[in-house]
């Protein structure tokens, strides 16, 4: 193992940070936005190691963002292959911190956090109990326990169970995958089609959820693992894609969302980043639709608004105590756009063939 001494340049600490979620198909993963926010922090120098699953993740080829990329085995391969691969990478890179950004991989990273720590790789993640408690499948019970408004739902293991769920929850019905994707079904045919599509993509169970009408608000929050909220930034979606993703959004000033995030973090002692997806009804009730256990793809907006959550996570992961932010800029807008990154087949060939670039 190469023993690299940490050199302090101009009093700035050098930190090697591995980041996943470099994809952008349909909707970008959070990885590039996380990296962008980290790079903007002037308090440390970051060497960024990209961790990818596919050779066409654009972050791999963004050399101004990512210094080096390694491919990982798919989450479905389990913790053994993941640990082996990270061990190999660690011999070359001496990673200080890994920030996983995909729901599908978080379970594995949380499980191996102690082994990663032994290798010298920090994480800043919730524990398994916290992770499981806010899972889509447990959200209703979680909401009842903590007096939060949560839509009613049913776990569906067979398509024949959909009709009973629809009878109880009524159409329109929200049909959701275990990790990602959701469809609003207005008829039983649409619900069944969604069931099969989601099942083939993400497995079982599928979640059938009560449809709540209202304004979509997402809240990015960061907890320190001791029940304290370090940062909260609420965002109202201004443009929503047909997949329900925010393609533009604006930071808003509403203390009720901030209190909701604080309540969630206090109740769970959440450690790390998270995103609360809220539907604010006309009657003023904020329904918690989902809690995503990682940074959202729009996380750079928090840095732009004055509360750089990824950089704060890095500092906390490296042992620094962070005082909670008290202000952010309201009216800050993000507008997502599509940019054709140009690279060469020679680079594609290298990452495809060797698993590194």
């Amino acid at each position, binding site marked *: 193992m190469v023993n690299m001494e940490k050199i302090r340049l101009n009093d700035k600490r050098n930190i090697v940070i591995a980041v996943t979620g470099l994809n952008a198909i349909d909707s970008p993963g959070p990885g590039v936005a996380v990296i962008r926010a980290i790079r903007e922090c002037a308090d440390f120098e970051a060497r960024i190691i990209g961790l990818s699953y596919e050779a066409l993740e654009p972050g791999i080829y963004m050399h101004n963002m990512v210094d080096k990329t390694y491919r990982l085995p798919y989450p479905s391969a389990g913790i053994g292959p993941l640990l082996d691969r990270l061990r190999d990478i660690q011999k070359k890179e001496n990673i200080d911190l890994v920030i996983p950004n995909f729901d599908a991989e978080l379970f594995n990273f949380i499980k191996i956090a102690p082994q990663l720590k032994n290798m010298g790789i920090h994480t800043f993640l919730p524990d398994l109990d916290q992770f499981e408690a806010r899972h889509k499948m447990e959200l209703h019970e979680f909401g009842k326990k903590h007096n939060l408004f949560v839509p009613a739902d049913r776990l569906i293991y067979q398509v024949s169970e959909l009709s009973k769920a629809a009878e109880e929850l009524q159409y329109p019905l929200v049909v959701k995958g275990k990790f990602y994707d959701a469809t609003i079904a207005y008829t039983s045919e649409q619900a069944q089609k969604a069931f099969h599509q989601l099942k083939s993509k993400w497995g079982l169970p599928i979640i059938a959820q009560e449809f709540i009408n209202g*304004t979509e608000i997402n809240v990015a929050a960061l907890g320190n693992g001791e029940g304290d909220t370090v940062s909260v930034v609420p965002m*109202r979606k*201004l443009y929503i894609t047909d997949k329900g993703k925010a393609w533009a959004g*604006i*930071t*808003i*000033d*509403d203390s009720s969302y901030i209190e909701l995030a604080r309540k969630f973090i206090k109740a769970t002692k959440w450690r790390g980043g998270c995103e609360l997806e809220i539907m604010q009804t006309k009657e003023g009730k904020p329904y918690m639709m989902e809690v995503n256990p990682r940074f959202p793809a729009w996380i750079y907006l928090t840095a732009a608004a004055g509360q750089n959550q990824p950089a704060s996570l890095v500092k906390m992961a490296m042992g620094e105590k962070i005082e909670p932010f008290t202000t952010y800029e*309201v*009216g800050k807008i993000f507008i997502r756009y599509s940019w054709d990154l140009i690279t060469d087949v020679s680079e594609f060939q290298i990452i495809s063939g060797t698993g590194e670039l």
Partner: protein
Amino acid sequence: MKLKKNIATSEAGFIFNPGTGDSYSSNPVGSEILSHLKEDIDRNEIIDLICTKYDVDKTHFEKDFDDFISQLTDNNLLDG
């Protein structure tokens, strides 16, 4: 009659509600009415001010003014 304290407006007639992220635009006369509402000037006084400044039939303007106020009310931009 007062505009809510947190509502941001510009001289060009742009209105922004930071609590909801909603934004609206008004024409120059609407913009002028908004500046009076910010100062908590009452309905009749605003109508008199506008009718003195512009060549407009008072009865006609009262209807337009009340319609404008109800739009502001529907969008939760006024206090009380």
